[in-house]
């Protein structure tokens, strides 16, 4: 008798615990979990994205096999990787540079920190519009250069410039948090030992903010890989597909090419690719982290 009372009590306790999860289950279920599994079904069909999914034909692994036989997929993949590399380099280089700069004591250092972070508050649509004007009117007129957004060989780099301007403020903040956590006594004893500014930076600062590197590099790299929005807003993927990133390419399979099944198969392969890279990259940097 006592045992069953305890059992009822424990069932009640589990139910209470689960009730805390209900809102999350609802939103996450509809927005991510069900779509994720529905997507697996889509990836095995020839669904066009327009007619009801139930009318689509099951095609087995056909979509996955044809991705590997289709060299068209290499172009968006290359664009995504180049863009992600440029962003990761640029965001972290400027993020760290500005973090080191504005943590020095001089007049207006706080104002500069604010200015570097300001573009991060803009939507990709706004940033793309502002830079479209700079690329198409301001730079050609002042520096006499061509419009870098309309040249296939420079468009990806030109879009990266927009992202770096709009994004390096966030890694800057993370690096500032890392830099201010390095104890100043370390620098003091290094000065006594006769280390110059560069040696201090390479031997003390860099190893001790390795954790910020891990975070910034992994986040920037994986986020930029699947990016679609900025390319859509800045160039629509043009000229001639030269800036059709992987995210945009997948988007186009639903809304433009009407081959949603194929697009979804590609999306999953690409997700697997991103996860493998993320694990590799964060593994490489984690190993170099120093415990304080």
């Amino acid at each position, binding site marked *: 008798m006592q045992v069953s009372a305890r059992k009822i009590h424990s069932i009640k306790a589990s139910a209470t615990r689960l009730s805390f999860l209900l809102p999350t289950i609802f939103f*996450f279920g509809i927005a991510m979990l069900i779509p994720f599994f529905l997507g697996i079904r889509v990836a095995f069909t020839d669904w066009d994205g327009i007619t009801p999914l139930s009318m689509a034909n099951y095609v087995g692994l056909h979509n996955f096999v044809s991705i590997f036989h289709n060299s068209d997929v290499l172009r968006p993949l290359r664009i995504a990787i180049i863009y992600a590399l440029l962003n990761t380099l640029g965001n972290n280089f400027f993020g760290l540079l500005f973090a080191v700069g504005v943590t*020095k004591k*001089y007049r207006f250092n706080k104002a500069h920190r604010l200015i570097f972070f*300001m573009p991060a508050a803009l939507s990709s649509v706004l940033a793309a519009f502002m830079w479209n004007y700079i690329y198409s009117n301001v730079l050609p007129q002042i520096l006499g250069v061509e419009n870098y957004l309309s040249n296939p060989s420079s468009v990806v780099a030109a879009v990266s410039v927009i992202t770096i301007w709009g994004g390096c403020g966030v890694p800057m903040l*993370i690096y500032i948090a890392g830099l201010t956590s390095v104890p100043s006594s370390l620098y003091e004893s290094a000065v006594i030992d006769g280390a110059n500014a560069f040696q201090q930076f390479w031997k003390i600062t860099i190893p001790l903010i390795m954790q910020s590197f891990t975070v910034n590099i992994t986040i920037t790299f994986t986020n930029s890989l699947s990016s679609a*929005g900025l390319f859509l807003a800045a160039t629509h993927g043009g000229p001639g597909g030269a800036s059709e990133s992987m995210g945009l390419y997948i988007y186009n399979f639903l809304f433009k090419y009407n081959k949603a099944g194929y697009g979804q198969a590609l999306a999953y392969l690409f997700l697997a690719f991103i996860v493998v890279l993320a694990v590799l990259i964060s593994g490489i940097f984690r190993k170099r982290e120093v415990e304080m």
Partner: protein
Amino acid sequence: MTNALKWLKKNFMVLLMWVSAIIFILPFYIAFVTSFKTPLESAKSLLSLPTVFHFENYAQALKMSSFFVSLKNSLIFTICSVVLIIVSASMAAYVIARNMKRKRFYAFLEKFFLAAIPVAFEIIMIPVYQLFYQMNLINTLPGAIIAKVGMSIPFALFMFIGFIKTIPVELEEAAYIDGAGKHRTFWTIVFPLLKPAVASLAAAQILWTWNDFSVSLILLQKDSVKTIPLQQFVFFGQYTSNFNLGFAAAIVSMIPIYIFFAAAQKYIVAGMTTGAVKG
């Protein structure tokens, strides 16, 4: 000469910051001056201040971009999403953080939501579109809100779990012994203690949701439900020949962003860094 070199060497970094800051603010300056000029005027001199301030650009841009309709949509979309993200994620984080040490199911949930963070919206937008279409949620603000909340929960959860772990359990146990239920204990004892985490997460999340482009691009395609970024995407597409009107619309849309930015800067900074630094 050597003195000048010495000065340069000493102040090189500061100088570099000044130059960079000017370059960083230049696009804003260009947007501002262009928004007040006529196309002819800005063709003649791109960077000069306008000789006459053409405020009619603003009136025209506001009307043509149906700014106030999209402002209303953006407000509804952002406020509802952020409130629901905070409520859902903090509740779930609480049971996960308090049970993950003893119960395998909750330990699994923590890993599971952590694994969901890198799944970008682009990866599942095709089935999201299909599912929401079937449920008649396309072109409705509730649909977009559900999608945004669901997509944002994993990161918010992860932040809250980290924070709740630092709160001692004893307070809750005392309340629990006094006869308060779990839900009451959470809302009266735990949630108030989460205030710093809520403030910084809400601040960062308001910015991200306000600027959301991908979720609304897929789910809000009708004019009456478009948010500001989406409305501008269409509007800018039509006005690349008249940048002056476009910039007037752009400047207007920056006003709410930077008012919020000025008011909540401290929390935005905290929200964008704490989750990441804990890593």
